[in-house]
């Protein structure tokens, strides 16, 4: 991608210690400056020092155990945090988060530099995806609905701003994404029938710049995908996974979550736009540019929030600006990211809930597989064929890597009322097997699969490198390095717990590090 002028100018004035915004559009090397490493969401590093021929010598460099401190968490806090977020690495300092907490750690040694604890007023402490950085400032969301800004240098709070309302059962968990002078924040919460939205905040003041709701305006043609304005205005569509961004097109890409009520869809007949969509927005205005809906009229809690991964590549004999998503519903999509036009729609695991795809390439749900009073057998299950753990794309291999699950469960309706609310149903039980899949973006076909020997799920994200490697956690407690082209296992390290975040890599002083979290602990490996 060509470097936009604003980035080139800004880079010149950023002093050491601050984030040079040019880093966000460069191949990943000595830093990991945003949730996905760079704006593309590929989680692909240009580093090559660690490679298949020498990975056997990769060994432990340091361990850091995140300590939240006694009594720091406040209402709803966790005594033992789980690191689900992807750390940032900027100028040799690593920043990691857990709900209500941020730590700065020396990326060379794992020694703590500072710790910030937010006194919580509540909210669901299910996880925190990470932080965003603009210049010398860090931003993160708290479960009790605040956007907090800290000084990068010492972790001192600058300000905090409300971004949602606990009383309405929202909470906040996403990693803010910085695009130009916009801090993009998402929201979470599906206990009640509330609308999802995405916000942009001023990086200096935290003031709201715009809010985009995950529903059409009354009177828009898309509003006809709801039976009533009331259903639409309470229709969900949370924005809990961080966006990707194309600076050249100036488009922000993200997915929206499930419609509300979650399981019982009888009072929201229709496709329920803009829930379960891949969305392209103008970050300066919050204006919708296009949408594509992976799960029209979802009734299985299959949030389409999985990272929309951006890359430029040949497809159908033509070089195109592409976007790919392995969606929670078991389908893999490749879109033209200038227009949202679908180019590939295929199952990456076998599913049983569709009647094929429509003219736009969107799956058509089979009404017989909507939840029923006496149960209906569905695959994937509620956890999905994929979930929030970030995938990876390697331009070297042309393969899209996803941690995939084949799982079944029975979906039940619990409330037969004409106006169900909340969830009014759920799924139960389940068989599942988990695998690492490499999908050919040109065909949507799975090129190779490595099925983990033990059943059960994994919550590990993925990392690919120009060195020809893919890193993933398995269903046990191993961090595993595989050959990106073939899926052959080349290296592993046994940790004390399963990998719980997306692994990262960076190079300092000529040494390439690979870092992954397991529960409350970060493990760093180098040669």
């Amino acid at each position, binding site marked *: 991608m060509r470097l936009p002028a604003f980035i080139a100018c800004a880079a010149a004035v950023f002093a050491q210690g601050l984030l040079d915004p040019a880093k966000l559009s460069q191949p990943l090397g000595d830093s990991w400056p945003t949730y996905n490493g760079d704006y593309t969401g590929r989680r692909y590093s240009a580093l090559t020092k660690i490679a298949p021929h020498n990975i056997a010598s990769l060994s432990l460099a340091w361990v850091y155990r995140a300590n939240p401190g006694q009594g720091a968490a406040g209402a709803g806090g966790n005594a033992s945090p789980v690191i689900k977020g992807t750390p940032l690495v900027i100028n040799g300092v690593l920043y990691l988060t857990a709900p209500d907490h941020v730590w700065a750690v020396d990326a060379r040694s794992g020694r703590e530099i500072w710790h910030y604890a937010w006194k919580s007023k509540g909210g669901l402490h299910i996880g925190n995806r990470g932080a965003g950085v603009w210049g010398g400032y860090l931003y993160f969301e708290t479960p009790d609905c605040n956007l907090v800004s800290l000084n990068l240098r010492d972790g001192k709070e600058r300000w905090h701003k409300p971004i949602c309302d606990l009383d309405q059962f929202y909470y906040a968990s996403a990693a803010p994404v910085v695009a130009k002078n916009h801090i993009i924040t998402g929201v979470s919460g599906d206990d009640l029938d509330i609308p999802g939205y995405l916000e942009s905040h001023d990086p200096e003041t935290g003031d709201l710049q715009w809010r985009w709701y995950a529903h059409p*305006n009354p009177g828009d043609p898309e509003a006809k995908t709801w039976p009533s*304005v009331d259903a639409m205005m309470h229709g969900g569509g949370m924005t809990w996974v961080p966006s990707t961004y194309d600076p050249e097109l100036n488009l922000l890409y993200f997915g929206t979550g499930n419609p509300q009520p979650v399981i019982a869809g009888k009072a929201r007949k229709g496709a329920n736009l803009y829930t379960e969509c891949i969305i392209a927005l103008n970050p300066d205005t919050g204006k919708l540019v296009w949408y594509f809906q992976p799960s029209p009229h979802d009734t299985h809690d299959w949030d389409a929030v999985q990272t929309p991964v951006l890359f430029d590549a040949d497809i159908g004999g033509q070089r195109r600006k592409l976007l790919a998503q392995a969606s929670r519903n078991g389908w893999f999509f490749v879109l033209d990211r200038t227009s949202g036009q679908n180019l590939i729609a295929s199952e990456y695991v076998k599913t049983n809930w569709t009647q094929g795809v429509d003219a736009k390439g969107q799956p058509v749900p089979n009404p*017989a597989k909507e939840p029923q009073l*006496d149960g209906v057998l569905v695959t994937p299950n509620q956890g999905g064929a994929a979930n929030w753990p970030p995938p990876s794309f390697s331009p070297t291999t042309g393969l899209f890597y996803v941690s995939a699950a084949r799982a079944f469960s029975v979906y039940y309706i619990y409330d037969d009322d004409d106006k169900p609310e*909340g969830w009014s149903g759920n799924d139960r039980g389940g*068989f599942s097997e988990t695998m690492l899949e490499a999908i050919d973006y040109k065909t949507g076909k799975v090129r190779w699969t490595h099925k983990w020997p033990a059943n059960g799920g994994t919550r590990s994200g993925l990392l690919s490198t120009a060195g020809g490697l893919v890193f993933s956690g398995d269903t046990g407690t191993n961090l595993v390095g595989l050959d990106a082209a073939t899926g052959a296992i080349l290296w*592993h390290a046994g940790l004390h717990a399963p990998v719980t975040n997306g692994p990262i890599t960076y190079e300092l002083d000529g040494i390439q590090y690979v870092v992954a979290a397991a529960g409350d602990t970060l493990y760093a490996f180098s040669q």
Partner: protein
Amino acid sequence: MRRVGLAVLTAAVAFGQAGPARPEVDTEAAERGKHIYLQFCVNCHGNLAKGTDQGPDLIRSVVVLQDREGGKLGPALIGLPNHKRDLTKRQLADVSQFLKQRIEETSKNRNAVKPPNVLTGDAKAGQAYFGAKCAACHSPSGDLAGIARKYDPVTLQQRFLFPRSGGRGAPTPKRPQVTVTPASGEPVTGALERIDDFSVSLRDASGEYRSWKRNPDLRVDVVDPYSAHNELLDEYTDADMHNVVAYLETLK
């Protein structure tokens, strides 16, 4: 900011500072509030406070959601025509508690209040399916005799679909059996303890724990006693599922 005109219609618009955590519902106050609600509010807002053609949904009302002890509810009632305006402070707090109780119930309704009725299938068709697909391993007069006395219908459904996850009240599932054969040495069979790509461990018939580092020369064969159940997941129709449950329910 976008959609200013829409703001008045949208539930999530007014935040202010994020308030303190939601307090616990006072059930005694909620019970008192319920009587007031049934007297003055139910005709328009409905039995469950979800609204009717005459009045809006109060579970989705931002005023109600943000209310503390009637502090927002009282002024809102005064501003609305044809509403009860002379409730005491305590009555307002009680109504607020009742509505909070309804909200909390709604927010937790992903959990079933009563078991779903899964007995909708045809037992005879289920018996035929059982004979064709299950009888090689199971017998209604043998291992499944009286199974319907042990488990409720939902557990029966979950047990035959997913014997490893079992359903509520189910016994500990059988562990996979594993046979490990070293390049030189006798095969060892036992209950699988743990397996990944790098090691395998088992407990043999004598109760001894054994483990091996995996390598290409080490043969590992895992037999899941439930593999036939897992393979059937791709074959069952929903009718098969309901019919088999109906049949199993006859095995009292």
